[in-house]
């Protein structure tokens, strides 16, 4: 099944992508990503494609002679992709895809927030934001995965939580979102983040036997 090591690894990558969806990378993070190649840490052994992506990601960063300029560029790209000057190019909230009027905080968002609350997660954000944001979802996923570690064994509740989270609240819409990201992201950086997030969720779904239930999408 899934070793502690693997779940720890997935959780870390989830946290990394979460951070990059919520905010553009800081200079410090860029420097870290430039210095360290984490391709070998990718927790899904069969997934050579993702290792290659990680290698390439690291290589492009290592070649960058002006990280500061890159950081500014990525900040702008992040603004247009995910926050929007007006409508973001890649809305990261599930509700935009699942709600017939593409509104935030739709019934799917409420369902997800209820799910998280019932799964004993408490949001520490000081401001009110819809929690069905891909960045926040990845952060929640990381917490669930780290529970495997905390419990020290394969706790059925935790496994079910992860399965349901993927199957009911993530899989119905996230691949459409990631496809948009592939179209719209101008930098290899955010292309890579999208591809790797895609792989992570797909592989995790396989491990936890989470289905992709055919759902009507409105965006």
């Amino acid at each position, binding site marked *: 099944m899934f070793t502690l090591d693997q779940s720890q*690894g997935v959780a*870390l990558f989830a*946290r*990394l992508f*979460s*951070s990059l969806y*919520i905010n553009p990378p800081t200079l*410090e*993070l860029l420097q*870290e990503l430039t210095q*360290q*190649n*984490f391709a*070998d*840490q990718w927790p899904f052994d069969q997934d050579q494609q993702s290792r290659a992506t990680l290698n390439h990601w690291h290589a492009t960063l290592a070649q960058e002679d002006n990280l500061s300029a890159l950081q500014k560029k990525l*900040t*702008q790209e992040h*603004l247009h992709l995910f*926050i*929007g*000057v*007006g*409508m*973001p190019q890649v*809305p990261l*909230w599930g509700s*935009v895809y699942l709600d017939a*009027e*593409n*509104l*935030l*905080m*739709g019934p799917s*968002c*409420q369902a997800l*927030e*209820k799910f*998280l*609350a019932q*799964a*004993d*997660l*408490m*949001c*520490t*954000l*000081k*401001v*009110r*934001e*819809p929690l069905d944001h891909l960045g*926040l979802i990845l*952060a*929640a996923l*990381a*917490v669930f995965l*780290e*529970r495997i570690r*905390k419990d020290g064994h394969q706790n059925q509740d935790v496994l079910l939580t992860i399965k349901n989270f993927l199957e009911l609240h993530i899989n119905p819409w996230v691949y459409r979102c990631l496809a948009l990201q592939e179209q719209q992201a101008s930098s290899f950086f955010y292309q890579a983040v999208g591809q790797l997030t895609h792989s992570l969720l797909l592989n995790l779904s396989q491990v936890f036997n989470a289905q992709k239930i055919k759902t009507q999408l409105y965006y």
Partner: protein
Amino acid sequence: MKNKKITKSTPCPPSIGRREFMKLGLMLGAGAFIDLHGLPSFASNIPVGEKTVWSNCWAHCHCSCLLKMVVEGDHIKRVETDDMGDDSFGMHQTRACLRGRSLHKRTYAPDRIKYPMRRIGPRGEGKFERITWEEAYDEVYTRLKGIIDNYGNDSIFCRIGYNSVAGPYHFVERFLNSIGGHVQAHGNYSNAQINEAVKLTYGGHFNDSSPMEMAFSDLIVLFGDNPAVTRMSGGGGTYLYQVGKGKSKARTIVIDPRYTETACGREDQWIPIRPGTDAALVEAIAYVLISENRVDEEFLRTHCYGYDAEEGHPEKGIPPLPADLGYKAYILGTAPGENPKTPEWAAPICGVPVQTIIQLARDIANAQSPFIAQGWGLQRQAAGEQNSRAVCMLPILVGKLGMRGTCNGANAFSAPESKMEMMPFGDNQVKAKVPCFLWPQAVLDGQNMTAEKDCIRGAEKLKSDIKCIVQYQGNWLLNQHGGTNQLAEILCDESKLEFIFIMENHMTASAKYADILLPSITWPEDSRYNVYGTYAVYAEPVVERLFGCPHPYEVMTELARRFGVHEQFTEGRTWDQWQDHLYLKTREKCPNLPPMEELKAQKAMRLPYDPDEERFGMKEFRQDPEAHPLKTPSGKIEIYSLEQAKRAQTWIMPAGEEITPLPKYCETWEGYSEISTSKYPLQFISYKPRSRAHSTFGNIPWLQAALEDCLHINPIDAQARNIRQHQWVEVFNDRGKIHVPVRITPRIMPGVVAKPEGTQYSPTAQGVDLGHCANTLTKLGGRSHVVKANAVNTCLVDVKAL
């Protein structure tokens, strides 16, 4: 043991790569969630279950309806409306229109402006970078201070979009006044001309008669008035219009270039009229009334000044008037240089047949209680003041105003206006006020604008060009002003406007031109009291503010703090403390309102409405004009305006425009009179959309699906241009081009095309506005003769199939 074997079961230290990877985790931090698994449970602070919360609509429609928000957890599920009581008339509900019911769709729009932004790149390209709130406060402070230091407060222009109950954004101008002041606008885009017209004629009384008075009328005549759309909510007048009219079943005549929703089978006669020619029609009616001896000569003598010769009152400073300067001589053509304003003269101008004019005049003369009113379409013209004054002449000539069932020819809107006390602006050190529509001229050449030439008020002239604009909501910086292409060029010139500061919910055409663009909260996230129609409400925030957006009052407070005027601006009050304070002050004026504690507890309360109350103005004046003079120079109804006579002596007018003491039909630039010589043979007007309040709500697809944003064109004009139903067309003139789908319909008269205003200006590189904003066709400097106000309904275009 010497050689301790490392077996698989012995935990290995992490490899180098693994260790670095774990460090990454530390760098990324804790993330947005805390795991409470296994810990003692605690009550979440997000409420569960469904509940309803009373709230209020703030849309820019001159009314305000009671809303009932259905909330689940802390999400607004849907918006319902006033359902208190049994809706029996007199205790009836104030029910929201479709716009009010979509308020939450603005709150939850994914394209909402979420965080503060700073422009990068040239102005107008719409390129921004995100900044923090602290950076925003510091930068706005620094730039505003720079403007004031370099150019003075006279270089700052601001107008809040809606200076009244439904949009209480007074804290913006209050803030500017606390840091030395700013140039204010006089008049507004909606009704500057009619306000002036009515002030000149009646000294005020612009909206005296409620449509309820129609219950006592035997004839209703509406000039360019479309309450079914412009007052379409329960808080607006359309319900009262239906009830009032329903009681008397008075014959109703709708005079409008379009067969509006107010007509559409609910009228008895539609008289199509060419835009801008209402004054000509009125003069012909006046001719019939006078020559058939149907005017009320006594009323004209006792209550009016200027119908015929006047003796005047030297002691009161009222000059005598020779007969040939009076209205009668003007209409009959006995004044030197004047022709008789016969129906035969008027018909080719206004497009109303001679017989129709004559019959209309007789209908008015025969009516015991004619209710004659106008909307705002005919005043939004180059000679708008003339049109408005002209329509007022009709009740004046037959002496039917200030009595039951009548209207003085001006507006007849609404439910009882709210008497809510607004946050005081504070003392504005800058006294000069610029006509609302002339602010772009003040940017280009403000220091040369004067009272005589440009209707500057409060001062002889402006001291400075405008270098800085502050816009809180509103879309007047570009979209809602005349001549979008031409105005965009001015906005792009950073040497002219050095600082543009905008706070807004959505990326409007105006917002793209901001230097600093800040989000604001939407109305369900705000709080206030309101008293309107048949309710009083204490509306608390329905949901928590999204994306951490501060209350705009807090934003202004932070700015005031940096300027060192925090105490002066806030008077020590938070927003909610201000709301309490203003409600208490309101109750001082209106003690019948519920006590604050009761309203806070109940949240929404019904206020009674007396169906039979007298709701017409000028009653006392009518009964005793000596004892109750009007606020005109003569104290009487001024058919001949003494104020206008003064201005005619001193004002500097462009060629072809004149200030006239009498209401007169005037030929104007791009009026009907120019059709024969113009390249552009069609008159273009815009009208209010039911799916928006101007451009607000335009980003809600659910609403936009309810109304087709298209160009209305008569079958005759469409056929002449080989235009097929629903196809896309180009509407164009020298100023711009728009592409828009067409609706061929007999609901608009030949020679006129019309579209809803408020769609967002979206020019392509080739210069075509695909957002088909009406103002891409209108004239930037197109202002009215007297108060230099918004004349966008004076516009010539042509249309071609695409």
